[in-house]
């Protein structure tokens, strides 16, 4: 029996020299890079309330869609992931197909915002943004696209205000929080969230990021940076890497009360499945989500396992339910080459058919 490794001296030499060359090149390449910019598409604010701002994206051509899309992003990261750079932009893809795209930016809550609740976010800010679009477009209902936690918000909103939503799109959205492969949920269930929020006020972004990194510590804290050596001599790839790195760690703190409610109601009580979630005095029942629903999830998602998203099919009241199972991860669904080809086209095609 031979050993498991067989590397020829030539291959070894080549690999060693390559690493050496890349490391040396890295010094020069990194010096060429300035501050990493992000955001591919021009946008302007059309409404705001405190730290929350509604932006409208400006495409290179006029929108042909009569009903605008409002993107409702998660609270835990910044929304520019959907428009990271010119060749990695869901927004750009939608605009190019004639969609009229808006995005709600939650801003960076500080301690004076610690009492913001899910009601404030969903029936306050989100509803106000929807109302603004209904009024400014002169229509009864808009298209709502919720991302991750923003997808959960969108489901709540659509369940409570179905008449204002014409079509609902959820992307990498957790619905069943208690699937056995959901590591985040598994950890969260043992936490005394009342104690946690009372002690911290707002939940610090660094703490949240640390939690996410430890979901896959060997890949995210080591392998990723060893892999970085491969692109040290490529300015463009390095810029892409740094842009992503910036997005990952550019995270808002979480308003304490909203965090408390989200963890209790969804991560711990699994409220979409088990019921019992009440916002603004009304119960959130996914059976009330009667508008057409497009549910897009990622097959290799370690933050929101596909099983957590797929559960939506059996819970919504809509008889017009469509799924897109995307081959990629939680982030790849926005920035991968495949995503640029598949996701905007799917969303646009699905909307046009309705």
């Amino acid at each position, binding site marked *: 029996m*031979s*050993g*498991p*490794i*067989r*590397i*020829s*001296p*030539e*291959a*070894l*030499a080549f*690999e*060693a*020299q390559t*690493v050496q060359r890349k*490391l040396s090149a890295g*010094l020069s390449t990194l*010096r060429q890079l300035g501050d990493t*910019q992000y*955001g591919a598409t021009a*946008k302007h604010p*059309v*409404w*705001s*309330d*405190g*730290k929350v*701002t509604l932006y409208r994206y*400006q495409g290179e051509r006029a*929108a042909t869609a009569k009903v605008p899309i409002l993107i409702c992003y998660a609270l835990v990261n910044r929304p*520019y992931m959907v428009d990271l750079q010119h060749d990695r932009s869901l927004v750009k893809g939608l605009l190019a197909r004639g969609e009229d795209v808006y995005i709600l930016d939650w*801003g*960076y809550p500080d*301690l*004076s*915002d610690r*009492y913001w609740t899910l009601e404030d976010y969903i029936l306050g800010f989100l509803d106000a943004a929807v109302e603004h679009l209904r*009024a*400014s*477009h*002169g229509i009864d209902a808009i298209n709502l696209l919720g991302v991750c936690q923003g997808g959960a918000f969108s489901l709540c909103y659509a369940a409570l205000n179905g008449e204002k939503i014409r079509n609902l799109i959820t992307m990498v959205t957790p619905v069943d929080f208690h699937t056995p*492969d959901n*590591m985040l949920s*598994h950890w969260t269930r*043992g936490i*005394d969230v009342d*104690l*946690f929020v*009372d*002690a*911290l006020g707002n939940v610090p972004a660094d703490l949240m990021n*640390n939690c996410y990194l*430890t979901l*896959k510590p060997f*890949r995210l804290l*080591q*392998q990723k*940076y060893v892999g970085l*050596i491969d692109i040290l001599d490529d300015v463009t790839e390095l810029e892409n890497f740094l842009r992503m790195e910036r997005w990952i760690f550019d995270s808002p703190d979480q308003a304490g009360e909203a965090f408390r409610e989200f963890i209790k109601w969804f991560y711990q009580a699994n409220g979409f499945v088990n019921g019992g979630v009440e916002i603004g005095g009304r119960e959130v029942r996914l059976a009330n989500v009667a508008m057409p629903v497009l549910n897009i999830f990622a097959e290799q998602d370690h933050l929101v396992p596909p099983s957590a998203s797929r559960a939506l099919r059996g819970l919504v009241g809509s008889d017009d339910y469509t799924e897109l199972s995307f081959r990629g991860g939680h982030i790849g669904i926005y920035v991968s080459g495949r995503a640029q080809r598949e996701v905007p086209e799917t969303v646009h095609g699905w909307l046009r058919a309705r």
Partner: protein
Amino acid sequence: MTQTQDGLHWLGELSDNWSQAMTAWQSLAKAVPGVEDAMGRMAEPAQAFTQFMAALGPGLSDGGYSAAEIAKRWRDALASGVGNVFAGQFPHGIGQVDVRQFATPLLDVFRQQITATLDAPAFGPGREQQERWQALAKAQIANQQAQSHYQALLGKVMEQAFARFEAKLSEHEAPGRQLGSLRAIYDLWIDAAEEAYAQIALSTEFGAAYGEMVNAQMRLRVANQNELERLCRELGMPTRSEVTAAHRKVHALERSMRALRTELTAKAASGLAPTPSAAAAARTVAARKAPAKAARRSKAAAPKRKAKVVAKASSPRSKKATAKVPTAGVGKSASRRRTGA
């Protein structure tokens, strides 16, 4: 020297020279802000692995090491402290697991004695203070215990990771399946480690330990905060509780204001009440860009501006109207906002 000899020579000397080379390299990199961190990020895991590969030496090319031997050498390399993924994340590295195993019984006895002391009743004028301090000390001990339990589980992760690594290497012992690059071996290690981690991290024991670690930290934080608050109050300084109470009131006022605004808008739409002023309505971006100027305008032209908003709702030209709104200076501080737009 041929290319092959050059590469082998470089790899052979890597173990001894790596630290020096990386130090020099990082020194160069310090000239560019932010680069040093990037270098550090790459250097640490790369250093661990190249040390490991250099330690395998000439056995690489003739297939002379078994899976067990390779896994053992990798364990030795990691035990030296380099490349520990949990370093910096948690207080203890894997190299300290064995030490803790020896020390744990002694520490447990010590903790029991201390805890018994902390349960002693307090008397006299200082009894309230003593009880609080006893509670604080207990919270510290409980936090240490919770951390230790959590660290012990991370130690298990590493043990199982080595076992999985060896098993995965064994799968490559058959001719034709052997690994042909350093990176392939490294990636195999990462796969093994992540699998081991996932198995333990999804266990009931880990979930409970994680929850208790977080809860113990928070109890300690609250106890510390309480003591600090008490001290601040005695010194006449404002406290977190006071600021929090003010924030709660501000939030309640904001909610009331929004509810009233919504009610007024609804009544105005149905003709039952006067139009809410522009200052009370959800503020337009233009008004926020130049508050002073906008305030002057709103006094003079509030009815007109509202009429414009109403008109926008039904006018096909409304898109153009909103597109003219200026883009800069809205909301947050410039230092945190880079739209790139």
